C-alpha cells in the first residue's frame, strides 16, 4: 500500500474516532514530524467536519419544522392559583366544621354535592422545571341542603369518581322532628402525586412506522411497515390489517386518515402535499393512487386539520 493510502487510512481512523488511545498518541507524534501528513490532515479535517455539519444541519432542520407551542404560563399566574386554591381549601374546611358542628336536622334531606379540587404547587426555583401536585381523586363533601343555612360553595369542574366513606354523626337532636345528619365524606385513596407539567403529544405512532401521524374515526392498520426498495418509490400493499409502504417514507412525515363518509369510506394517506387512497386487501405491491376529486380532498383536509 502506498504511503499516501496509508496516511489517508490513518487520518480517517483518527478523525472518525476509531483509533485506540495508544494509536492516537502514536499518530500525534507522527503528525508533528511529517509536513506532508499535516497538510493532508488539515484538508481531511475540513472534509470530515463538513460531513458532520451537514448531517447535524439535516437533523436540526427536521426538528425546526415541528410546530411547538411557545406559550408558557405567566409565573404570577401560579401564585394566583396557589392563593385561590388555598382559599378554597380553607373555606371548605371551615364550612365542613361549621356544618358538622351546627347542623339543623330536617325530616327530608337533600344532598348537594360540592367537589373541591385541591392543588398545591411547589415553590418555583430558578432553573427548575415547575411541578404541579395534583390529587388523584377529588375531595367531595356531601351535605344536606333543606332547612339548613350553608355558606355558598362553588362547584368545581372535573369531578372524578372516588370511593366514599360514610361518616355518621349523631349530634344532639334539636327537636323531636330532627334526625341525625349523615355526612358522606369522600376522600382520595392515594397521596398527592407529583405530576410533571409536561404536555405529552397524543400523536399515536403505530409500531414500526416512521413519521406517522394518524387521525382516525375508526379502523386503522395495526402495523405500518416501511420497506426501503430501490425499485418502488410510491407503492404500497395493505392486507390483514398490515400496511406496507414502499419508498422513502422515512424522510418526510406522512399521515393516515380513516374516512367514514359513506361514499368515500376507507383509509387515506397524506404525503408530500397529496392525498392517496389505500385500498384494503391489496396484496400485491401497487402504486399509490392520488385522490383528485375536490370534494373528497376537502373532507380529508377537514379531518386532517382537526
Amino acid at each position, binding site marked *: 500500500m502506498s504511503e499516501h493510502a496509508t496516511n489517508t487510512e490513518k487520518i480517517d481512523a483518527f478523525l472518525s474516532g476509531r483509533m485506540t488511545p495508544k494509536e492516537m498518541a502514536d499518530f500525534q507524534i507522527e503528525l508533528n514530524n511529517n509536513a506532508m501528513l499535516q497538510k493532508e490532515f488539515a484538508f481531511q479535517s475540513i472534509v470530515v467536519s463538513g460531513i458532520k455539519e*451537514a448531517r447535524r444541519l439535516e437533523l436540526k432542520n427536521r426538528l425546526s419544522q415541528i410546530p411547538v407551542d411557545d406559550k408558557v404560563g405567566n409565573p404570577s399566574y401560579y401564585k394566583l392559583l396557589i392563593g385561590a386554591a388555598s382559599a378554597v381549601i380553607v373555606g371548605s374546611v371551615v364550612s365542613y366544621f361549621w356544618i358538622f358542628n351546627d347542623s339543623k336536622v330536617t325530616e327530608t334531606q337533600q344532598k348537594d354535592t360540592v367537589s373541591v379540587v385541591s392543588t398545591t404547587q411547589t415553590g418555583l426555583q430558578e432553573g427548575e422545571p415547575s411541578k404541579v401536585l395534583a390529587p388523584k381523586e377529588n375531595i367531595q363533601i356531601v351535605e344536606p341542603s333543606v332547612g339548613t343555612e350553608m355558606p355558598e360553595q362553588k362547584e368545581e369542574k372535573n369531578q372524578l369518581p372516588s370511593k366514599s366513606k360514610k361518616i355518621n354523626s349523631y349530634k344532639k337532636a334539636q327537636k323531636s322532628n330532627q334526625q341525625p345528619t349523615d355526612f358522606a365524606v369522600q376522600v382520595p385513596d392515594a397521596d398527592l402525586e407529583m405530576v410533571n407539567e409536561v404536555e405529552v403529544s397524543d400523536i399515536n405512532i403505530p409500531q414500526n412506522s416512521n413519521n406517522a401521524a394518524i387521525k382516525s374515526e375508526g379502523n386503522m392498520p395495526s402495523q405500518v411497515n416501511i420497506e426501503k426498495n430501490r425499485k418502488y418509490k410510491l407503492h404500497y400493499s395493505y392486507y390483514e390489517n398490515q400496511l406496507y409502504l414502499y419508498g422513502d417514507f422515512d424522510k418526510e412525515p406522512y399521515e393516515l386518515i380513516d374516512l367514514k363518509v359513506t361514499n368515500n369510506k376507507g383509509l387515506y394517506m397524506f404525503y408530500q402535499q397529496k392525498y392517496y387512497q389505500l385500498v384494503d386487501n391489496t396484496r400485491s405491491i401497487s402504486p399509490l393512487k392520488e385522490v383528485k376529486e375536490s370534494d373528497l380532498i376537502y373532507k380529508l383536509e377537514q379531518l386532517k386539520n382537526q
Partner: protein
Amino acid sequence: MSDEEIVKRIKKGDESALDYLYKKNYRVILRYVLSNNGTSDEAKDLFQDALIVFWEKVRSGELVLTSKISTFVFSICKNLWHKELNRKNRLSGEPEYEPSESYNHDADERLNIVLNVIGKMGETCKKVLMLYYFDKLSMQDIATELGFANADTAKTKKYKCKSELEKLIKQEYEYKDFWD
C-alpha cells in the same frame, strides 16, 4: 413510547423518535431557558442541539443510560445553556475585539464549500458518509441500514464516495484560489 422503545428506534435510525422527544419535552426546556435569561428561539436552538447530541451518543453506542431520557436530555440542555450564558457574559465583559477577518472568513468559506458540494452528492453517498462519520456506525451496520450486500460493499462505496467528494472539493478550492 417508553424510553427503551425510543433508544431502540434511534439505534435503527428512526428519526421520528427524535420528533417525539422534541414535542414531549419542549415546554420544560422552554420554561427553563425563559427563566434563565433566554428567549424562545434560544430554547428551540438549545433543545435541538441537545437532542442531536443525544442522537449521536445513542447511535455510536457510547450512551449508557442510567436515568430517564428526559432527565438526561435536560442535563445536556443545562450544560449547553450554562456554556452559552458564560459565553454571553464573557462577550459583554470584554472590550470589543475583532478577530482576524481573514482567518474566520477562510474557515467559514471552506466549510461552506464542503457543505455545498455535499449537497450536490447523491443520496446514497451522502448517507454512507454521514452514517460513517456522524453516526459512527460500523460498515456492517451501514450495509444493513442501506441495504448493501455486505460490509465490504459498504466499505467500497464509502471509499468511492469520499474520493469523489474530495475531488470535487479540491476543484472548488482551486477555483476559489485560497488553498495553499
